[in-house]
């Protein structure tokens, strides 16, 4: 009975409630506040489409972050919409502690290549270990480490 509960796939609403904040935190930084809503919807609709085929209710948090990672990278690749990184800087409707400093940080983050940006967010916003980042991004652990360190180096170059 208990095994059934832990392994069974929960109703989608419970899965959504349990994971929406983490997925949004990831996307808000990985694609920017302006597009986070759209990619969030795409992520969860994609999850909903595949959901009845899941046989195992464990590790659904990693499963949905894997989908979100793919969507985030696809979003940037599709993105001639991303004409200027500055387009991702949130308007003032989104409150931040120090607007001037965060504008600079947003611009720097937006200038990263998609895979570096996604890896940096997993590591330094969501605090995921490298092994998991590799799994989320479908890469080797070495590649995950390289993406994070190159991304961070670049951010530090851009922001003193």
């Amino acid at each position: 009975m208990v095994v059934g509960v832990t392994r069974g796939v929960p109703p989608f609403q419970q899965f959504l409630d349990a994971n929406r904040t983490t997925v949004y935190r990831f996307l808000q930084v990985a694609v920017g506040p302006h597009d986070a809503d759209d990619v969030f919807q795409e992520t969860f609709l994609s999850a909903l489409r595949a959901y009845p085929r899941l046989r195992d209710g464990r590790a659904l948090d990693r499963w949905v972050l894997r989908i979100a990672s793919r969507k985030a990278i696809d979003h940037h690749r599709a993105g001639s919409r991303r004409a200027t990184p500055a387009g991702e800087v949130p308007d003032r409707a989104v409150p931040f502690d120090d607007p001037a400093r965060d504008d600079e940080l947003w611009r720097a983050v937006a200038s990263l290549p998609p895979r570096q940006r996604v890896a940096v967010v997993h590591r330094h916003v969501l605090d995921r270990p490298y092994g998991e980042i590799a799994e989320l991004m479908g890469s080797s652990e070495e590649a995950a480490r390289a993406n994070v360190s190159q991304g961070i180096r670049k951010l530090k170059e851009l922001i003193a």
Partner: protein
Amino acid sequence: MKTTDLKRLASGADGRSAVAAASLPDLATSADLLDIAVGTVASPIGDLIVAVTPRGLARVAFDDEDLDQVARELASALSPRVLESARATDQVRRELGEYFDRRRTRFDVAVDRRLIHGIARDVLAQTSRVPFGRTSTYGEIAGRIGRPRAARAVGNALGSNPIPIVIPCHRVLRAGGALGGYGGGVDRKETLLALEGAMLA
């Protein structure tokens, strides 16, 4: 720059994710991906949980079951694509509201009978024919399904009714006018019969 600065960029995500998640049921409906919409409606016998599929109303539950539990049962019995949606449950919530306001004596909402199995299919089909304000008995229903000696089985089938109120199992009493049992408790049965003006003296 400190790497910890990056976390600040994610601030406010909880509130924004709630807003974004709230529009998901409508998007899912448009994409034909919402298999079960659940919602709640207040009533004189407590909040009711309703579950609607593209075929119709599949479940009505009383508030002694919680929404998560009902959703889990539906997920394993029908489909895990379950989302809360006021819009997708609008018709049944409105009809139940009208019923409790005594502005409705029969329900028009389509019914999804996939949670009804075995003998309960016949029993509840006959029960659906007992009109507002009238009552029947376990024995009568047993007779109508061609199993006149199966009054006890009829009682069990009524107790398993996944769509109480709309399939009016509360209108079936014991012979002689005793209330008999009710899945939601005899108090609720009495309240429903009183609301319909069918309470026996």
